[in-house]
């Protein structure tokens, strides 16, 4: 059936958890593109046949017309599926730029196609340059603050880091008080967790 592969591609995206990415399905993607080329060939041969037949043979012309129409519709449909696949993935990638900033973890990066990696790089670079222009980090304080300091536990070895008010040794399992703004990026990257007092 026409358009089957394209909808498989869309289904694959729909079945992944919201906000999560699955690996870019290059294989299926190019299969759909091939299918489009096939449709185009059929379409062209039907169109040229219609022209050869001339205006006399109305019934066969009609049949050719509807055949061509079906191929045309299939191409349009495939296009919509491909566009939606790329677009919706791009939305997720854009969101990544806000939550984990410049460094992409390896397990996410390997799921992106090359254009998507470029997209992420450019998007976060744009964000960074905008923020430096404003002189304001827009990615912090996503939750309204109650207290400038919070208690955190370090989950992974980070080492000695210069923070805005102190030089701290962020060793694994250490529990310490940090400024919210310093801690926020580590928490969103999963390297620390906030402890509720």
């Amino acid at each position, binding site marked *: 059936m026409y358009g089957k592969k394209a909808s498989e591609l869309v289904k694959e995206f729909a079945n992944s958890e919201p906000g*999560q990415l699955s690996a870019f399905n290059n294989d299926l993607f190019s299969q759909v593109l091939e299918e489009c080329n096939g449709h185009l060939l059929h379409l062209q041969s039907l169109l040229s046949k219609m022209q050869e037949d001339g205006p006399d043979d109305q019934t066969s012309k009609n049949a050719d017309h509807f055949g061509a129409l079906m191929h045309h519709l299939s191409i349009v449909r495939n296009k919509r599926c491909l566009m*939606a696949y790329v677009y919706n993935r791009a939305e997720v990638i854009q969101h990544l730029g806000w939550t984990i900033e410049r460094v992409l973890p390896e397990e996410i990066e390997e799921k992106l196609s090359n254009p998507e990696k470029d997209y992420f790089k450019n998007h976060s670079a744009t964000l960074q340059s905008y923020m430096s222009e404003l002189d304001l980090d827009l990615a912090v304080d996503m939750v309204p603050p109650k207290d400038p300091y919070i208690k955190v536990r370090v989950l992974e070895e980070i080492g000695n880091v210069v923070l805005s008010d102190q030089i701290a040794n962020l060793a694994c399992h250490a529990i310490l008080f940090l400024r919210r703004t310093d801690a926020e990026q580590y928490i969103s990257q*999963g390297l620390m967790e906030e402890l*509720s007092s």
Partner: protein
Amino acid sequence: MTNYFDIDDILAEDELVPAIFREATNGVGLFDSTDDTNKVEPGSKVELPFWLARELHLRQAVTVSVPPCFNKRTREEIDADAAHVDLRIRCPYFYELGYKIAPLVGDKTIGLVLLIAFRTRYKEVLIKAHTAFAVAPTFLSLLTEEEVKLYKAAQSSAVAFKKWRMGGPRFEKASVLGRKRKPIE
């Protein structure tokens, strides 16, 4: 007009609807044709995905009829107890398809069926999502895609409310990283 990139809209239009060809069509290897001409004769009964059926119907190449998920039996079941009808097995995009197909086939009763079904089931979904901690999986398997979304939204709002009342950590790890950490630990 729905969003061009809407995943659910795309999948809803992939549902099959029964159609009968009114015109002969050349050059489509769509169905098992025995000869090489790939021709579809007028009068052939086929099942077409909705995106194809709609356009062909509007150009009067095929006649679309009401899909089996809106048959008499389903309607009777919905009238009897809409909350426990397995709509998912009939069509995971029951409401969307009904909404799209009704103007094509000119069946005014479909809208009424959808309304009754949704009203009853919406209440049930919200009650279950807000009160029960663990809902029997059999209940979730009855829901259409749209209802599952409602259920999840209701559940997450209940969780958020509870969190707000109890207090607790407010910073969270970016949700994209959520699942990836498990294998490391």
